[in-house]
């Protein structure tokens, strides 16, 4: 038990902990029990099915697809957003006139409600009449783009939409690390005849390693939880093609009333999230220790 002085802190922690437990922990128990029973609005009696729901979640090809497409989308997002975000970070970490004003506008997407972002991009990408599809894709490239035509069209629409929101995050996560590099260091490297690539590789990269890891992990968590933008754009369609795990969990509840399967998916998703979270914090702590040394 803590000392007497410390006991006061327990009282300080009590209200916040109580609320978080009430909302984030206590309802997990009925959710666990859902997975052991058949609970559905269509079946009046609930009966015990053991671990069948987990087995179904892990073997149902549709649900497997939902997990797979979520991870695929995560990988795709990182592959696009991290390099572009890094390039822009390299670009804006060197001073230029009006940088302050530029940053004000450039950061704006981070504050915009995701459902508004989804709807705004839907307008821009409407088949035939959206300004991007009409003026750019059709006008310049001659492509007849319909975002609900197939898997790739849909995933591209969602990718562009989420990229708009998250590139500022990647960039501004990396800028402080870049700004911390003393300009003399780069200048003297240039005098010594180092190419830009070598400066990047040997001076910037070591300093960026830790912020980059953090940005990547936070992006992974957000990608796994993708919901709002995709919900506004495709609602999981066409067909099942963009039915990410969050969409699957929600649809199982609100349109199929299949609480048992949704519960099993919820628990698996939470498990993945907690493991990833633990990884992030371990790496952050290591980074901190490295900084102290």
């Amino acid at each position, binding site marked *: 038990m803590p000392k007497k002085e*410390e006991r006061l802190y327990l009282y300080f922690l009590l209200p916040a902990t109580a609320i978080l437990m009430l909302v984030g922990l206590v309802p997990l128990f009925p959710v666990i029990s859902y997975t052991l029973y058949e609970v559905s609005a269509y079946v009046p009696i609930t009966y015990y099915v053991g671990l069948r729901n987990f087995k179904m979640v892990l073997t149902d090809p549709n649900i497997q697809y939902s997990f797979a497409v979520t991870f695929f989308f995560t990988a795709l997002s990182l592959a696009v957003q991290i390099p572009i975000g890094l390039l822009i970070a390299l670009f804006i970490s060197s001073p230029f006139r009006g940088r302050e004003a530029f940053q004000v506008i450039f950061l704006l997407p981070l504050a915009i409600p995701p459902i508004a972002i989804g709807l705004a991009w839907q307008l821009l990408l409407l088949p035939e009449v959206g300004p991007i599809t009409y003026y750019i894709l059709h006008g310049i490239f001659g492509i007849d783009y319909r975002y609900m035509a197939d898997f790739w069209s849909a995933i591209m629409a969602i990718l562009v939409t989420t990229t708009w929101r998250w590139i500022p995050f990647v960039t501004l996560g990396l800028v402080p690390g870049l700004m911390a590099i003393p300009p003399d260091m780069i200048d003297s490297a240039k005098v010594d005849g180092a190419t830009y690539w070598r400066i990047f590789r040997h001076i910037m990269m070591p300093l960026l390693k830790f912020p980059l890891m953090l940005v990547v992990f936070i992006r992974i968590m957000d990608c796994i939880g993708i919901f709002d933008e995709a919900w506004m754009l495709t609602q999981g369609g066409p067909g099942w093609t963009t039915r990410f795990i969050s969409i699957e969990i929600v649809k199982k509840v609100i349109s199929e009333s299949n609480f048992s399967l949704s519960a099993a998916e919820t628990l698996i*998703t939470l498990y993945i999230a907690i493991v990833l979270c633990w990884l992030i914090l371990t790496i952050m702590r290591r980074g901190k220790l490295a900084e102290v040394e």
Partner: protein
Amino acid sequence: MMNENVKKVLKALTIIILLIWTLLPIYWMAITSVKQGVETAGEAQRLPYPPNPTLENYQYILFRRGYLKYLVNSLIIAGGNTALVLLVSVPAAYAFVRARWLPLRHLQFWFLTNRMAPAAAFFLPVFTLFAALKLTGTYYAMWLAYCVFNIPLAVWMLISAISAVPAELEEAAMIDGLTRLGVIRRVVLPLIRRSLVVTGLLVFLFAWNHYLFGLVLADAITKPMPVAIGDFALATSEGAYYKAYVACQVVTLLIPVIIIYSIIRRDLLLGFGLGRV
């Protein structure tokens, strides 16, 4: 070596492209919201400016369709949640900073996982809980449910603010006869006032922007603006005026966001977990 002038032009060009990219969706929403309804159907909607700007859409949506009510709901929900979150997070953050008792590290980790986990993972639990408490459709449900992501955020931000207050300062104040609570009120709170305001605004922003929990916790009377917009946009029965109406709902939702953003933009990243890098 590249010519200096070419470099400058390239740089200016990149800046312009990035600005257009960032502003285009917002600009398009804004012009769509002030177009005449018929101008947002068919080929007319390609027009990159409003030929006959009008505010009728706003009048129709906010007053005749009653979206003012959803706006007020959003204010009540986000405001109430912010008050609740700050009230419990300040003492919690203080305890995390000052307490030496080791198991609290694990508690802090668990706090954080609640924020990092996908909101959808709390969708069914939260729905189950408030259905069992018979609280679905009330503001209470949303005030409490939004705490899942906002308490960890507030605690995290306040921890970094309170860590900056030197412990010696508090000890000196205690030698002068203040109690621990007195120290918090007279020494700590005034010192972290700015962080407190920023945290409050960011918590408000996240509650204001949140969609998913409202989907199951709100009813027709208590639904917040994002849910109302989602319902409207996903219903297909609104005819030719649909896009103008959706756009003006979105712009209405964005106005407070932009106000808050202009106040806290410097501190925004802290809320996404990057502040202490």
